[in-house]
């Protein structure tokens, strides 16, 4: 009967072991890192520590706290000075002179100056670096260090979106003395936190950089702790082990219990039904307009995403936000949809195939099914091709689709957001599936215009043109949910989902 005795003893042992040191469970990490360390729950660890090639959300979030950029975004996504204290555009718009901040040091102690800027921007332009922001510098033909604190960018054409583009972490300024291969394991930036260590798939730790040029971070350090499941992150917050997290899934966010504050932030990224106007029935503008009129965006939002979001037009950045009512059918209109179909000579109905990603984001399949049901009522058959996310990305990248249910990232500047999609020379134009001489002209005007109000008008016109042509069907923007536990304050969430404000967070 040893077995019978052993069982209760073992279980009791495990439970006792599991129940004893409650205090250390709650503040376990702070004990290791000193009081005031903040634990951020993340679903995955960064897939790279090189800012120039980082596109993964988690990587961007870590790197934004380690590296510095010439310009930055404030909480309204307006461009504010970063490593460049100020900048000035020449009268003809073809020279941008940046005055650099003095007294800035990298984490390794070396001094930041114009040489680092020239080195970084030139490396981003070089194709062998495979930097993702390369095209944001397409207008830049020359980068000159005038003196240690002045850099001059020569432009082929005026580029009003450039200061905003320089704020992306993909434009991070690296030290000219560093080899990129070394930075893959030991980042060296000018940001408010220094990289300390990392256990792959478990955690990554940062420490406050006391030599930061701005106001130093309030917490001593940050630990990004990998908890792959959002429900489990919430459970870890409930038990006090994690203090801050950015959640995507509205269902999970809604299940947060007492003691956790959830703040919703509308996102720049947008849900859309991308149409490839160079294929099949969709070459006919009337078919596209018929689809646009047959869709009730609010219903798609309600059924697929629990109503968590806002119906949107093309441009989602706060300063240039499109008016969602400015479109051929501001509300669903099945009669007009049928008229458009008849005008296209397709009164008996058309069939369109759409690719849908499964697993890339929570709402994709539900969204696709809601669209399918609504279009069916207007005699438009939407055939869904549901693909594993890798297969979806492959098809999307190759522009191998008639229509695509997509969640695309937005950018604070509308030129950076759509110039690459809807200009005939844009590097994503094949994927966008639409361009026109009028749009080329408008985007060129937008780039050349430096007056804010005049720019707004131009982009409102671009937005109207995209809707009138039904280039794509824009649906809605979602929220991200910043969850914080009691005692955590000061965090300012941004519409681009950025965690760049971690230095403002304090833990009591």
């Amino acid at each position: 009967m040893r077995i019978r005795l052993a069982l209760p003893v073992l279980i009791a042992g495990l439970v006792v072991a599991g129940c004893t040191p409650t205090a250390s469970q709650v503040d376990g990490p702070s004990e290791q890192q000193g009081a005031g360390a903040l634990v951020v729950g993340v679903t995955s660890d960064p897939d790279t520590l090189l800012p120039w090639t980082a596109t993964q959300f988690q990587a961007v979030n870590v790197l934004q706290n380690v590296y510095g950029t010439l310009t930055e975004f404030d909480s309204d996504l307006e461009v504010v000075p970063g490593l460049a204290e100020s900048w000035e555009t020449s009268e003809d718009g073809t020279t941008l002179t940046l005055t650099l901040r003095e007294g800035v040091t990298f984490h390794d102690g070396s001094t930041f100056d114009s040489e680092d800027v020239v080195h970084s921007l030139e490396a981003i332009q070089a194709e062998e670096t495979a930097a993702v922001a390369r095209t944001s510098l397409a207008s830049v033909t020359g980068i000159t260090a005038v003196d240690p604190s002045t850099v001059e960018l020569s432009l082929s054409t005026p580029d009003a979106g450039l200061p905003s583009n320089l704020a992306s972490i993909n434009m991070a300024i690296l030290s000219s003395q560093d080899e990129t291969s070394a930075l893959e394991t030991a980042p060296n930036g000018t940001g408010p936190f220094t990289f300390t260590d990392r256990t792959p798939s478990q955690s990554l730790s940062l420490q406050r950089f006391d030599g930061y040029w701005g106001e130093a971070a309030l917490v001593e350090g940050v630990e990004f702790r990998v908890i792959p499941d959002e429900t489990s992150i919430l459970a870890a917050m409930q038990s006090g082990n994690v203090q801050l997290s950015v959640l995507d899934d509205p269902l999970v966010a809604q299940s947060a219990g007492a003691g956790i504050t959830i703040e919703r932030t509308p996102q720049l990224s947008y849900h859309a039904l991308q149409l490839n106007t160079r294929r099949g029935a969709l070459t006919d503008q009337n078919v596209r307009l018929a689809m646009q009129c047959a869709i009730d965006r609010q219903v798609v939002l309600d059924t697929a995403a629990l109503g968590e979001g806002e119906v949107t037009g093309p441009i989602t950045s706060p300063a240039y936000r499109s008016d969602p009512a400015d479109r051929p059918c501001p509300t669903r209109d099945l009669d007009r949809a049928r008229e458009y179909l008849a005008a296209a000579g397709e009164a008996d109905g058309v069939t369109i195939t759409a690719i849908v990603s499964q697993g890339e984001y929570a709402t994709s399949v539900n969204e696709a099914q809601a669209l399918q049901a609504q279009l069916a009522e207007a005699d438009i058959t939407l055939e869904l091709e549901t693909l594993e996310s890798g297969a979806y990305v492959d098809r999307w990248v190759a522009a191998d689709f008639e229509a695509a249910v997509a969640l695309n990232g937005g950018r604070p500047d509308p030129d950076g957001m759509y110039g690459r999609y809807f200009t005939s020379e844009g590097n994503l134009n094949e994927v966008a599936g639409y361009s026109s001489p009028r749009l080329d002209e408008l985007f060129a005007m937008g780039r050349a215009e430096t007056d804010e109000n005049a720019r707004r008008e131009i982009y409102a016109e671009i937005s109207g043109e995209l809707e009138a042509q039904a280039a794509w069907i824009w649906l809605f923007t979602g929220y991200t949910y910043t969850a914080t536990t009691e005692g955590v304050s000061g965090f300012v969430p941004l519409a681009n989902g950025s965690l760049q404000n971690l230095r403002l967070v304090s833990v009591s």
Partner: protein
Amino acid sequence: MADPSPRSPRRLRPLRAGLLGHPVVSRLLGAVATLLGVAVLVFVLLRLVPGDQITANLGTEAAALTPAQRQALEAYYGLDRPPLEQFLGWLGSVLTGNLGWSGRAQVSVLDLTLQALPITVELAVLAIALSVLVGVPLGMLAARRPNGVPDTLGQGASLLGLSLPAFLIGTVLLSVLSYRFGFNPNGQAFAGLFDDPVRNLQQMLLPAVTLAIGISAPIIRTTRAAVLEVRGLDFVRTARAKGVGERRLQVRHVLRNALVPIVTMTGLQLGYLLGGAIVVEQIFSVPGIGRQVLLGIQQKEYALVQSTVLVIALCFVLVNLLTDLLYRLIDPRVRLS
């Protein structure tokens, strides 16, 4: 099989047959063939899945790459070499102990595996221990009086254990315990068994229990069936007639003779667990081998997935060999045959 060699076939044939026919040698050869098959299969399957490490890293942003940028990335990830060269290069490295490099973690796959494998082994052993400790006594109890109350309860419990998926048990356990009691050791940074044994065992408790619920079900059933079969045999009646006490009879005579199927079932379950209890490792943030494979597949880190799967297959083969050896220990009849 005719020997193609014309020279002295008579001398060679018995020697070869003798060596190959030896159970240990044939087992080892079989194991090597299995591992090679796994290596080829995983290599091919990974490349049949659409996308590569570039699209996995950049997502739709990969559409914006210029041809030269793409070339630079292909060279960086080693995707520019022909598949056969990739396979032979990888296999050659593996044979010299180099399992590859993980670009995501910036660590060698060997280091990653050495970190993750012991964690999964610990979890698997704990889960198996728990399920054997629960499953075998319950199975014996159920077999005592077939269709009696304990039997019906045991059958019901095992049916429940079989039908409840691990993700449900895990999520419910975690949520209820952390919401109601603030108990969530898995929310803390993961601690290794030798770094902090107390916290480590706390963190292993819930995942092990979750796994054990599912695994004890087949063990209960197997034990019940095996015990019922052995109980009806003559030697049990003889033992009872000789006056052997009931408890001693159940454990020393019945259970011992019913062990072979129970060990088989346990070994099988252990083998599967070593493949990584991916779902449970995800829910409880246990950085085991299952998560390593999952992340590798998501990131399309070919070398990492190939090597890790090979290691898992090796573990599976080893567990099967050990199970076979155990038969010889517990059942003299196997030794004789």
